[in-house]
């Protein structure tokens, strides 16, 4: 090789590395790279399967990213993503063609401990009525210690009576206050559900911010 070629070799290599640098930086910062290749493959496979099945795959991706951010063991993340996949599928099967957000909220209710049959009451609803707030409050009550049967019964009854987002939020706020003051969660719900007014969907006001 000529001397001039040898001299300019580092320069050429630098130019090529420079061109390759931008995509390399992007690749290094993909959080999924922190997973073991087998775990990563399992999670990506479930995300693809969810997408193909018409389930909200972003919920699975978000769950995996949360696990990665918390530095949770990869196997545990895979198990949790698999469980979430099952919950999403059950929620979709139970509720039918509802929005992805509602499927995610229903999966959270199932994750909290409700039974799929208890979700069935929400399968039929007036056009334009959303059960996001109801599902969110339902899951919260069970998480705070209200027995699953009692919470499910109370929320289903309110839903069937036409309660709107403001009513669900008001109930939650009252029960949460009572629980924080030391009242038994189940008793707090029973006390507050009796004094909860039910408005028809026609008279509902602006929903509060969760």
């Amino acid at each position: 090789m000529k001397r001039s070629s040898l001299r300019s070799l580092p320069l050429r290599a630098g130019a090529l590395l420079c061109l390759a640098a931008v995509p390399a930086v992007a690749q290094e910062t993909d959080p999924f790279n922190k997973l073991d290749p087998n775990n990563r493959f399992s999670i990506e496979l479930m995300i693809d399967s969810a997408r193909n099945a018409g389930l909200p795959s972003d919920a699975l991706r978000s769950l995996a990213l949360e696990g990665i951010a918390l530095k949770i063991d990869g196997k545990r993340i895979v198990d949790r993503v698999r469980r979430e996949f099952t919950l999403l599928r059950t929620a979709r099967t139970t509720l039918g063609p509802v929005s992805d957000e509602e499927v995610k909220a229903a999966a959270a209710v199932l994750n909290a401990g409700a039974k799929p049959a208890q979700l069935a009451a929400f399968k039929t609803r007036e056009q334009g009525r959303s059960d996001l707030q109801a599902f969110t409050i339902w899951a919260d009550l069970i998480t705070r210690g209200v027995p699953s049967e009692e919470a499910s019964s109370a929320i289903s009854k309110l839903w069937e009576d036409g309660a709107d987002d403001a009513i669900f939020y008001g109930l939650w706020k009252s029960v949460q206050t009572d629980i924080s003051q030391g009242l038994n969660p189940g008793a707090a719900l029973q006390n507050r559900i009796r004094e909860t007014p039910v408005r028809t969907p026609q008279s509902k006001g602006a929903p509060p911010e969760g």
Partner: protein
Amino acid sequence: MIDSEQHTYIDMIAREARRPVATDRAARERIMTLVRSEPAPHRRSSVWAAIFQPRFSLSPAVSTLLAAGLVGIGVIAGAFAMNRDGHQVGQPRFAAAQRLPVSDTVVKFVFVAPQAEHVSLVGDFNGWDASKTPMVRSEHSGLWTVTLPLPEGRHLYAFVVDGNSWSADPNAPFAPDDGFGHANSVRIVNRGS
């Protein structure tokens, strides 16, 4: 013309072609001197030739330094051009200055942590990345706030205090156990809420 006559002519031509030509030695030298004095013909230019057939040379030390500099520029440019998810960033980080997509709503998050040195918001809207949405402390109070645009729907979130402690929002509904031993909160964003 018959074959034997044709062969005879061909042989004559071949002999003539093979006969050494006597040239003037001085004339040949003059011609070669003229040829050598002409500049080399211009090569056809191309990107490939520009990279791999450079017409300049540098010492190995200077070439190495130059190469290192180019790599450094590339890495820095890449880091600025991409965020941690590998997506291009060109917009300010916070809601107030961002151009919102049509369906997004600006949402304010508030957290009380008087003793905290640093609080950030993590959630399904920022890939649970604590470096993406730092909260701002109000002067003379322990109130930390941030506003950001969120699409309509249900969002999970938590607050990260001093980089290691995750806390749910006490003023919002809880999400069920995430399976990782941490509590999250839920914010429902309605259009215009």
